[in-house]
């Protein structure tokens, strides 16, 4: 499940990876590729009833641009401080916590965070992230080896 805005530079890494996975057609029919179009509510709705959900998102983790981490929701804390529910910006960790409280989370949730080099208006990823797309894809595909 991709989060992010493809018109904000590296914030679009999630949708870019999704398109790459779709083009490669290597995933099993049991796997849905979902672009949430930046809507955290769409992500919430799509969680219910799923065995496993892998989120792909740009994340500020204090790493070197281009680095990525695979982690579980309980292994990280969000530093986002939103005043409330916004229709234009969501807190993934907050949404996942809400989904758990509602009893509507997926069986297993994994998050891939990609440290951006550039988050600003404009289409296309930075050179750093673009150069590592194959590596990212390989790691994501590992999650679905038994799907």
């Amino acid at each position, binding site marked *: 499940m991709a989060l992010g805005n493809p018109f904000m530079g590296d914030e679009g890494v999630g949708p870019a990876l999704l398109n790459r996975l779709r083009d490669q057609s290597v995933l099993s029919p049991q796997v849905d590729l979902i672009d949430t*179009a930046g*809507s955290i*509510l*769409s992500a*919430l*709705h799509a969680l*219910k009833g799923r065995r496993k959900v892998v989120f792909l998102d740009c994340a500020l983790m204090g790493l070197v641009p281009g680095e990525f981490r695979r982690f579980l929701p309980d292994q990280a804390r969000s530093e986002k401080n939103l*005043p*409330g*529910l*916004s*229709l*234009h910006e969501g807190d993934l960790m*907050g949404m996942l916590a*809400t989904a758990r*409280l*509602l*009893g*509507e989370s997926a069986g297993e949730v994994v998050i891939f965070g990609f440290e951006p080099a550039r988050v600003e208006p404009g289409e296309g990823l930075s050179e750093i992230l673009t150069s590592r797309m194959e590596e990212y894809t390989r790691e994501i595909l590992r999650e679905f080896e038994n799907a």
Partner: protein
Amino acid sequence: MPKNVKIDVHHVTRIEGHGNIVVRASDGKVEKAEWQVPEAPRFFEAFVRGRKWDEVQGVVSRICGICSISHSLAAIKAVENAFKIQLTEELTQVRTLTHYSEMLQSHVLHVGYLIAPDLFGVKSVVPLVETHLDIVKKIVALHRAANEWSDLLAGRTTHPITIIPGGFTRIPSQREFRDLHKRLSDLVPMAQEVAEVVLSAADKLPGFTRETEYVALKKPGIYAFYEGEIATSDLDKLTPVNQFEKVVNEYVTPQSTAKWARWHRDSYAVGALARYNLNREELFPLAKKWAQMFGLGEKVVNPYLNSVVQLVECAHVLEHSLDLLDKLMTKPPKSEKVDFKVRAGNGAAAVEAPRGILFHRYQFDEDGTCVAANLTIPTNQNHGNLQKDMEALVPTILNLSQNDIQKYLEMLVRSYDPCVSCSTHYLDVTFV
């Protein structure tokens, strides 16, 4: 009473888009009470120039992520009017059903996620998960169901792909209509429970009233959403949609990047309240029952009750949809679209978006290329009325604490369910 009041809300939370509230009062006298819109213009009316007739819908649906179906329908109806395309009764029924999916989705989102926190004294819907788990689950379930209903009819929840000039690229099968009928039937008791919870907290809504002009679509025999002509509460006559520019009379104000509108008075209101005030007698029975349950009379002039009327409309939309599905299962469309010829023409159309009456107009040349466009959005029609409400409300609440004044003003803005980003569509600019 506070001697001096200084309120600067930049920006109001729990609305779509960005808007500011600015209030200044000295010694109990209001010097300024302003609703400001600082959103950047969107330029959609420029984007579509040079685009072909079959591209327009795809572009303008991007004006909004919540009412993209309404924008698509208004655009496509305008194209159909320009090319003199007439749909069959069955295709019109499928269009209405598609439109209703967005109405339910948007109203549930607004009342459930954006308004409910105010009713229960919390900052967002998240704390309500702990105190009202059952109802939050029902709100989420209703919203999810409405999204999936949009997926079925429009191809996807946001930015529809099945609606095209002349009809659809795909009509659901009879089996899908049957499944949808079952699904919507199951939603009715769920929606009832949500309405009853809102009713239990409705006393938190301020009792402010202000008479204004109300404008909405009207067509005899139906509670108009998808079709009709332009009605006003100020006169007993309908204006053809093709003359909408004479209704909206858009103008620019210094405090807003979105234009304002006025007709017979300084401002008018569009949206659920306007639809209710002009079409109340056409509500389906359950909706009328809910209106009674909420104590809504023949005319509602409290803007805070817009959200309550949205719930009443949810009941109507569900009931009417079940009726439409029965009709479509008895007499489905014979084909997905009608034939037509592309020609030079000018077409205007209107639908009721969740937030109010939405107008689109396009001019096409003989190749079907768009050469001009004019869109008037519900929220920009409401900005002026919101300002007037604010001016009338603030003097009556100056005796409250500054926090409470701010809270009531934020609630007032939210009650309009504004889609602020949609409203800043295009400015004609002359540099001096």
